């Protein structure tokens, strides 16, 4: 490890009011700024002031709304660094021990030169196309200079004036915060629709006054280098900083969204939609907790129109702001909050900033442009530097690299279009619509299946196996029925098993799971598409019952990871009895059993005893059949046998 000594940051406690009370309400949709009785609505982005209240009702006056811009740094899922052959965490030879995976170029060893990684460019092009951007056939690299120990060159290679892609947009699914956790012991039983804790996005467009989707513009997407990682270690009042260069030089794409986001939950929607999209494309693993996806927010507040002139001094007068045209009249100076690592932090820091800036606007001292960071412990943002302390990045064309031309050498195809035709998959929203329309499965299931391309493939393989199996046995079942059955077995039963075993491994640390950690790694399944398809075919042609199939799946998942379901069923004697003669025989055997003599007599008495005794016999017969009797057919057989024994009772 390389060490350097530095005095610890002094945190200026600038806030005059006690704001800790904001976060006594973090689970509520709103929280109040004590001084002015302000509340922030995370869905609408409106800051309101309490003007009167009594025991039953309160009256709020909307004063400001938040305007948010987002910059996202996504680490691309490629095996080597952007400009060197150094391994990333996606490479088999990567070692996580500090500084053991950095190549000479990654630590800026004099004499080493950058060599552009093709797969980085390809992944960036795929991501940018999925984000509806215009891909630039020629882009350029530039050096951005600043001095920090985890930046080995003293500059970052990025794309400032000629980015890889421009002018895109992202259709976002609205984010719904995960439900409050009830007391620990009483976890309600999962309903079929709500299997997935992390599906915290709206799944039904009609049940809310906000529409399911909204669109946010993207200004640009650029390729750039990641830095090393600094860790502070404090002892004896001084702080030492340890630097790990393993990450240095990894490929990032920076995605700059236009300030067309107006509420905390919208900001979370943008990030969660982007996260699932990149994961789906396979271009980024989306792990916010590991820093694979990092987020910077630009938050400002704007007086609700009609009220603009009351807050003149707060106006954003930065003419260099490229987004000037997008900003509403009278908006305050923007504040940048850097390095947010979860959806929760995004929501909380937006809310904190909206309330803080509103408070300062109200008391006549609007906040200035500054850079802040979010402290998850206190739930506050903390100032790092103001605009006067801004760094002059001294951008300069990168002389060690020629312009990036998307030619055959980089893409491996003759044209960009050809490359995209070969490499851009069906996008998630298209896949969702296809699964819902063609296969007739529910939106909730479609959302789960399309969270991962390998899961779609798994689903499709299982469906075709099932169809094939049924055809082999001359059974005709509607294709939509098959699809729905596969979707249910996959999303409800198989994923539940997978989730369970992961939780067992991980312990009960569920903090990140709500942030969308993917359970659906097909590699984690012990049951492949072929076996699931076979299993569902057995259910559909009534070879086994649903209950038996669940037992089968459990055996397939935990014990027998090889055999086909039919073999396991036969070995265990799990086979649905559907033959009427056999069922009747079992019924007769139970009814005429001497032990059941009394019950049979009671039945014969009729009246209220009929229902009770039928139930009794059903249980006995089911036990006699070893649980294999087909429930409805067995009920019919029983009725027939009882009618013969005691005609006229019913």
């Amino acid at each position, binding site marked *: 490890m*390389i060490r*350097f*000594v*530095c*005095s610890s940051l002094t945190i200026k406690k600038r806030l005059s009011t006690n704001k800790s009370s904001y976060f006594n309400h973090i689970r509520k949709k709103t929280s109040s700024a004590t001084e002015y009785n302000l509340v922030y609505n995370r869905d609408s982005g409106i800051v309101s002031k309490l003007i009167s209240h009594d025991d039953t009702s309160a009256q709020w006056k909307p004063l400001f709304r938040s305007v948010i811009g987002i910059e996202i740094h996504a680490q691309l899922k*490629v*095996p*080597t660094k952007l400009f*060197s*052959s150094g391994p990333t965490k996606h490479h088999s030879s990567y070692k996580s021990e500090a500084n053991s995976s950095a190549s000479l170029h990654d*630590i*800026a*060893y*004099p*004499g*080493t*030169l*950058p*060599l*552009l*990684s*093709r*797969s980085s460019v390809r992944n960036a092009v795929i991501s940018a196309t999925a984000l509806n951007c215009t891909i630039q056939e020629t882009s350029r690299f530039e*050096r951005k*200079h600043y*001095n920090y*120990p985890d930046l*080995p*060159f*003293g*500059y970052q290679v990025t794309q400032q004036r000629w980015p890889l892609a421009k002018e895109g947009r992202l259709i976002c699914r609205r984010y719904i915060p995960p439900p409050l956790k009830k007391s620990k012991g009483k976890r309600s039983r999962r309903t079929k629709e709500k299997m997935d804790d992390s599906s915290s996005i709206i799944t039904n467009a009609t049940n809310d006054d906000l529409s399911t989707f909204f669109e946010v513009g993207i200004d640009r997407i650029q390729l750039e280098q990641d830095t090393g990682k600094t860790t502070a270690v404090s002892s004896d009042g001084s702080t030492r900083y340890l630097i790990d260069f393993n990450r240095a030089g990894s490929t990032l794409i920076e995605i700059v969204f236009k300030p067309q986001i107006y509420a905390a939950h919208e900001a979370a929607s943008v990030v969660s939609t982007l996260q699932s999209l990149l994961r789906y494309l396979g271009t980024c693993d989306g792990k916010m907790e590991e820093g694979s996806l990092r987020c910077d927010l630009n938050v400002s507040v704007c007086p609700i129109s009609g009220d603009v002139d009351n807050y003149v001094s707060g106006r954003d007068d930065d003419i260099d702001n490229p987004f000037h045209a997008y900003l509403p009249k009278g908006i305050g100076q923007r504040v940048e909050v850097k390095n947010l690592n979860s959806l929760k932090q995004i929501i909380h820091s937006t809310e904190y900033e909206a309330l803080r800036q509103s408070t300062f606007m109200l008391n006549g001292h609007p906040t200035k442009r500054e850079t802040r960071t979010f402290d998850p412990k206190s739930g506050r943002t903390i100032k790092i530097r103001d605009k006067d302390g801004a760094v*002059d990045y*001294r*951008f*300069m064309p990168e*002389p*060690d*690299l*020629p312009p990036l031309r998307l030619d055959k*050498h980089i893409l491996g195809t003759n044209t960009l279009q050809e490359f995209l035709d070969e490499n851009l998959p069906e996008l998630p929203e298209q896949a969702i619509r296809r699964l819902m329309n063609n296969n007739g499965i529910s939106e909730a299931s479609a959302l789960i299946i399309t969270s991962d391309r390998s899961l779609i493939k798994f689903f499709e393989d299982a469906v075709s196996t099932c169809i094939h199996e049924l055809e082999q046995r001359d059974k005709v079942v509607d294709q939509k029925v098959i699809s729905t059955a596969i979707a249910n077995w996959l999303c409800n039963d198989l994923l539940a098993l997978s989730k369970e075993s992961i939780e067992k491994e991980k312990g009960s640390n569920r903090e990140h799971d709500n942030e969308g950690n993917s359970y659906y790694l097909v590699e984690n399944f012990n049951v492949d598409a072929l076996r699931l398809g076979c299993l569902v075919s057995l259910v559909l042609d009534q070879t086994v019952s649903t209950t038996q199939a669940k037992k089968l799946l459990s055996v397939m998942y935990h014990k027998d990871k090889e055999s086909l379901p039919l073999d396991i069923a036969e070995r265990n004697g799990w086979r649905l009895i559907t033959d009427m003669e056999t069922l009747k025989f079992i019924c007769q055997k139970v009814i005429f059993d001497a032990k059941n003599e009394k019950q049979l007599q009671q039945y014969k008495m009729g009246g209220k005893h009929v229902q009770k005794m039928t139930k009794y016999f059903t249980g006995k017969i089911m036990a006699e059949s070893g649980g294999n009797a087909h429930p409805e057919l067995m009920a019919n057989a029983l009725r027939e046998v009882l009618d013969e024994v005691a005609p006229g009772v019913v």
Partner: protein
Amino acid sequence: MDEFGMGSLGTHSNNGYTVNPLPFLKDISFKDYIQRIQDGNVPLVNIGTDQSRNVLSPGGSSSGSAASVSMGSSIISLGTDTGGSIRLPAAWCGIVGMKPTYGAISRDGVVSYASSLDTVGILGPSTTCVGYTLDILRNVKSESTVEEEMDCFHHTVKDSTACFIDSVCQGEFKDEDEDEYGQLLNGMNVGIPAAFSVDGCSLPVRDAWERSMERLIQCGATISVVSEDYISPETVKLSLPAYYVISCAEAGSNLARYDGLRYGSFYAPTPSPNRRRESQFAYTRSMGFGREVQRRILAGTAVLSSDRFHTHYEGAANIRAAITKQFQHAFECGGHHGTGGIDVMLIPTVLSGPPIVAGKDAQPLDSTEAFQNDVMTVPISLAGLPSISVPVNTLDGNSKENGDWQPIGMQIFGPRKSERQILRAAHALHSMVMKQDGSSSS
């Protein structure tokens, strides 16, 4: 050499100045001298211990490389040429120095000064030595398949700015029979760019320039004056400041990594409680870097700052683009009456002889004045063109005895990737110089 390649005189070094060995080689005739080097029979040089003796600059920044070839301790040496760092010392040390097309030799492993200008080149006693060495070192495009692990461009050449040139010596460098000299450069059109005829050019250099033209004509070449319509004196004049803006900007950036944490000597300052990291960096860098390097880093930082970028850096980049275009245009159609093209151009490498850097007549050196030594070399560097400096004023003859003898180099340069052409012309010129001076002294 000069620290990080920054300097024209070989004086900016932690270990003092480099000595030009030429005045100490007086007793050997030029022809014998070349012969002895090529035979591996090293001429011994005794510099002596006389402190008052005048020491001439060998030129910089590749001072040691040039001096070692000049005194015969090495048969060839390598250097980098950013704005003339091979050609200038070659001229002042009386040897051949070649800067090929930018990127022709990989920069992999070269500590960067100004990345867009740094060019690896060769210094040697003759064009033959230089040509053969270039053939070995030049980047060769590999047809091999992509190495999965690397996943990068140009797997065999670890330099993204590499350019690929053809082999330069295919039977080119045999000793010519005397009567063949007239055929050597048959059909070659040599341009003399009027814009490079500047006031600062000393009389001996001007004479040598004219004699060199005559010698090339004797070899069968045609001479055309390239008019100022093609290459403007204004652009040539502005090339020098443009060069310093660009090279300082890139140097400031490339040298940012020497902060004492990973690279560069670490100097611990007296602890100050505030902004300790910044003061540590600053102290390390002021202690570690020499004065000239610090001057250039500061200049580079200044020209890239947001209030100067457009006026300075972009201005320089525009001049660079202009001179590049003018050269290209001149080579394409700058010949007689604007009809024909130009194959190579001939200009002096440097306008005057080496200054005295130590001894009783040593002059105080002004850094900005020293920049003037590069005026003939930097326009070619900015355009990334191949250029070779040939010694045309040999050690022999009477002038050597009367003390005012000065080594003079002539530069032959051509369009991109024209290494073979410029070596052909340089070989002819050098052979003529050796033949004529050799015969006159015998």
